[in-house]
């Protein structure tokens, strides 16, 4: 689990042995998670179970087995859950004929808000996602990025404590993407739970407090990105050494017990070393460097989500 804190169950999103099957097709299997406040990213390729996990925690689908609890609320109580939670789905369809403003305003009226309050909340949410100028236009005429932002406005308009965002950066141009990431950080700083899914790994890498790595319906790793890396002891860590004589250095480091593999970097100016014990290797490298190797830099080559993910699911290797 990401963190053990049974006392704070009402402040966490908890999955207990949750499985979901669509007929014979596996959605997710035996998921156990306890997600604290902050930004948590669900990372995995298409079909890994990210959206299923989000749909489960928002009650859009029901678990075949297990229990889910969102800040003390069961997802099958939408009348309570959605006062606390906002969900920006991947569904790219909208009720017919609505403008951006109507889309949010009508949604807020479903909460029971009176006209004036709904209007104010609508305008604030639309302003927050930078769509004020387009609010009077029909959603059907919006670009992909604008539709993404109006969905984000829908998710945040009622000031929820939990935000579930399914691929929220999809279709956003770089400027809007940066603004949206800043908005996520601001919301997390306000103490919200943000659950973000993505398969564009470098995006979530920089904004996440925690990551949950999924593959084929299973949680393969979870925790802070560095902790996740430490969890994977059976997988060697890759280190990139920039130096003047990488071929000689390769021959030298390969004598060390802790080194699993050493090979030249594709650009010819460095050495990629795989080791099962990074601390021992760094000590050994200090010693080796004194033998006349001109070592310019030493850095982990795979301490990001992409590399960890590739290690875990065995789809490739990082060569940063």
């Amino acid at each position: 689990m990401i963190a053990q804190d049974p006392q704070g169950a009402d402040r966490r999103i908890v999955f207990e042995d949750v499985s979901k099957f669509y007929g014979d097709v596996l959605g997710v299997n035996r998921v156990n998670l306890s997600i604290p406040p902050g930004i948590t990213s669900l990372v995995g390729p298409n079909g890994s179970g990210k959206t299923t996990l989000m749909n489960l925690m928002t009650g859009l689908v029901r678990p075949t087995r297990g229990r889910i609890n969102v800040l003390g609320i069961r997802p099958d109580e939408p009348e309570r859950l959605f006062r606390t939670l906002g969900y920006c789905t991947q569904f790219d369809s909208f009720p017919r004929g609505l403008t951006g403003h109507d889309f949010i305003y009508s949604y807020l009226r479903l909460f029971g808000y009176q006209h004036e309050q709904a209007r104010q909340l609508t305008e604030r949410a639309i302003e927050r996602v930078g769509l004020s100028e387009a609010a009077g236009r029909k959603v059907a005429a919006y670009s992909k990025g604008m539709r993404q932002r109006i969905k984000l406005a829908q998710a945040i308009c009622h000031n929820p404590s939990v935000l579930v965002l399914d691929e929220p950066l999809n279709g956003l141009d770089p400027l809007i993407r940066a603004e949206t990431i800043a908005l996520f950080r601001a919301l997390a700083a306000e103490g919200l739970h943000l659950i973000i899914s993505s398969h564009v790994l470098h995006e979530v890498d920089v904004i996440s407090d925690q990551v949950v790595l999924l593959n084929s319906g299973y949680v393969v790793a979870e925790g802070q990105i560095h902790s996740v890396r430490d969890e994977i002891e059976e997988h060697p860590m890759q280190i990139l050494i920039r130096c003047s004589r990488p071929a000689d250095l390769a021959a030298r480091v390969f004598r060390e017990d802790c080194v699993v593999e050493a090979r030249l970097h594709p650009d010819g100016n460095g050495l990629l070393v795989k080791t099962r014990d990074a601390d021992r290797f760094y000590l050994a490298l200090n010693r080796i460097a004194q033998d006349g190797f001109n070592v310019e830099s030493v850095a982990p080559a795979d301490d990001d989500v992409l590399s960890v993910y590739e290690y875990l699911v065995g789809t490739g290797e990082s060569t940063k």
Partner: protein
Amino acid sequence: MSASERPWSLWAAQTAAIMRLELKKTLLARRGLWIYFLAFAPVFIFVVHAYHQLRTGQVGDIGNDTHIFAGIFQLFFLRLAVFFGCVGIFINLFRGEVLEKSLHYYFLAPLRRQVLVAGKFLSGLVAAMVIFGTSIVLQFFALYWYFEPATRQEYFYHGHGLAHLAAYFGVTLLACVGYGSVFLAAGVLFRNPLIPAVVVLVLEAISGFLPSFLQHISVIFYLKSLCPVSVPAAIFMDQGNPLAFLAVNPAPASAPAAVLGIVILSVVALAYSGVRVRRMEIDYGTE
């Protein structure tokens, strides 16, 4: 006061919000134009009939026209226009949203699913009554407007005119309630709700020949019992009309039993729909 302390007022506000969204979609949808054609076809027929009578200088017979109205009301308006109109309106309340992949808009709101069912049903009912209620009033006046003013006034204010109009309006309302609840349930329960709609159509057509207990779960059985003027079935049969069996109503229910029967049927259909919608998952991928 919080929502949980006064749920009825919250539910009323939420129902109103649902109706605002749904009415616009139902009444102004281009794909629903055929419902208007069906609903207002009798108005057109009566206007043409009245115009023909005026042009040829014929004197109308209110008694005869009343039977014509009863025949068109029962054989066309109830069985076809209202029936298929309700298929078009109520089946799409949920099924249409699943096909358009927009049902999650409601499912993401803090809304009891039963309130959603009630709100959508009321929206459908209001839309259906705006269309069919307007039609029945226009039909009535279209049929009788060519009579002499004195004859008309006598019929409306001293005869059965207004009572009949109220009765037809009430039967139309009950038809929309009964068929609406059945077709809303069909839209929730079936992936292809046109199949149950056809089954209901056949059952309604042969309801006069069904065993008594089966007649009591048929909407048309109660509606025919409430119509103020019977269709002259004997005339149809004498003429060997193959549709004569549609006019058969051998053992009509009393008015209170008929109203109660439709209300119970509708409450059962809506309650079951509420349970199913409460458990409904969003899984557009399988559609």
